[in-house]
């Protein structure tokens, strides 16, 4: 079944992005409200007309409470995607579109606020005494944090395909180069060379410091409504041309705890099935994509995601990034054009959705000419992975 919605993203809202701990004057909850209000304002939609709230895993800022804080007169849709970390970012937009398309709600906002400085850093353990259920088979046996969890498939991937460390480094350099074109990026004005990358401190092999996403404070949101409403609004409408979420057998907790995914699937991002549906549904192929945002919690996963999406054969995604191949608006396939999770900010990857929409509007700091199809792949390695293809309405 093809994706048969013509719902559009009509508003983009962001707060400023800062290093974790630097947001001291406003709560994470306030940032969620601010980003949502900014998205409505950007869209030219009265905040009181927003009637749906869509988010994804690990969100502390419940739609019901955000709605109350913003004085929403009636909530008609409130929904959160299951699954770990940032994997459901695109799925939250997909769900917003489905709510609009079904008539359940008219203006649905998808959002994420994340202040690691206020609630604990993702790279640190939280001092728990006991691990429950499936988590005990990871945490109690030494596998406690995301960099470790995502190091394991990367190590296996590098072993199976003889991938050099530099291929991971080129992913980091690509994001940094784009952050240096983006004044809003946390790592703006921080040049990085391959020597800087190779000399950065080892975190958990194969990952060095610059293989790991930032830990940030900030929030962002997109407002979704029908194509009919979008046509009457001031911003160029961004059509959600295709949307998909899901994953393969055994990937439920995937990289985040089980590590018993099928052997043939193990050194992947669990994204191939979603990618196939995403392209098939839109009648497109990877060659049709003009610009891509590929979630970089850790560099190794970006390579596997790029391969799952068919942008490169297995083991060869490093070639997409080496020699600056993915940098700048004239690249064959510009990737992570705002600086992404590695160098713009880590807002659980929702900033990648915002950037993918900007590319369609024509307002990216690394704007690609005449974008017809802008792709975003949300977090890798668990179910649901999710992705979107956006295009001018």
């Amino acid at each position: 079944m093809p994706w048969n919605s013509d719902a559009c993203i009509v508003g983009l809202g962001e707060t400023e992005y800062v290093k974790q701990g630097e947001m001291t004057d406003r709560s994470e909850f306030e940032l969620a409200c601010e980003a949502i209000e900014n998205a409505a304002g950007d869209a030219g939609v009265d905040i009181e007309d927003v009637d749906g709230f869509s988010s994804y895993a690990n969100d502390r800022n419940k739609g019901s409470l955000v709605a109350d804080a913003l004085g929403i007169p009636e909530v008609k849709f409130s929904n959160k995607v299951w699954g770990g970390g940032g994997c459901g970012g695109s799925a939250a937009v997909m769900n917003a579109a489905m709510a609009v398309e079904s008539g359940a709600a008219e203006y649905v906002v998808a959002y994420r606020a994340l202040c690691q400085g206020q609630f604990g850093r993702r790279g640190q353990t939280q001092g728990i005494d006991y691990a429950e259920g499936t988590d005990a088979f990871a945490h109690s046996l030494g596998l406690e944090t995301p960099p470790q969890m995502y190091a394991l498939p990367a190590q296996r991937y590098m072993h199976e395909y003889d991938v050099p460390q530099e291929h991971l480094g080129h992913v980091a350099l690509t994001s940094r180069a784009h952050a240096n074109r983006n004044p809003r990026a946390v790592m703006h004005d921080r040049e990085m060379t391959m020597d800087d990358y190779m000399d950065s401190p080892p975190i958990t092999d194969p990952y060095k410091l610059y293989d790991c996403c930032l830990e940030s404070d900030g929030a962002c949101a997109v407002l979704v409504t029908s194509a009919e409403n979008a046509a009457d609004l001031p911003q160029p409408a961004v059509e959600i041309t295709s949307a998909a979420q899901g994953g393969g057998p055994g990937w439920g907790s995937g990289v985040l705890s089980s590590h018993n995914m099928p052997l043939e699937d193990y050194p992947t991002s669990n994204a191939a099935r979603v990618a196939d549906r995403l392209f098939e549904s839109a009648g497109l192929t990877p060659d049709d994509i003009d610009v891509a945002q590929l979630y970089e919690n850790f560099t190794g996963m970006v390579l596997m995601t790029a391969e799952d999406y068919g942008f490169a054969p297995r083991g060869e995604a490093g070639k997409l990034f080496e020699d600056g191949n993915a940098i700048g608006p004239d690249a064959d396939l510009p990737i992570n054009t705002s600086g992404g999770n590695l160098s713009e900010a880590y807002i659980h990857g929702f900033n990648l959705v915002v950037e993918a929409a900007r590319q369609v509007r024509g307002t990216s700091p690394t704007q690609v000419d005449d974008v017809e199809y802008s792709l975003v792949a949300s977090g890798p390695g668990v179910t649901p992975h999710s992705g979107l293809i956006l295009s001018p309405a």
Partner: protein
Amino acid sequence: MRGTTREEIFPLPEKGIDTAPFWEACNRHELVVQQCADCGALRHPPTPVCPDCRSFDVDWAEVPGTGEVYTYTTTHYAASPAHEDHTPYNVSTVLLDGTEDIRLITQVVDVDPEAVEIGMPVEVVWEDVNEETTVPLFRPS
């Protein structure tokens, strides 16, 4: 606070209804995985239903406690103050002998972490964390 014992560094396993038999076997220094009582398929980590035949009847099968390193990481950073004196340390998944594809997350110990590599043959070594809890670690065999 810096940790010196395993109990001070890593969280202890909470023994739930689905998972207690695994941890209780560890206390006896037996490595077990779930086995479907109907179709005989092995699975890990424990779940209440066989994904192959949907049976809810569960057995536990002892495995030899040997295997090979399927993938690993050497962790250099301290994820909390308790970890500071524990780095660098190994975390691996071990492909268990006696199974088709089951991997156990564990740590390979009694060896320089930098010497661990994919394919290394390993065997279980039991660490009695306290009176209630034993965890399966591995060492080169």
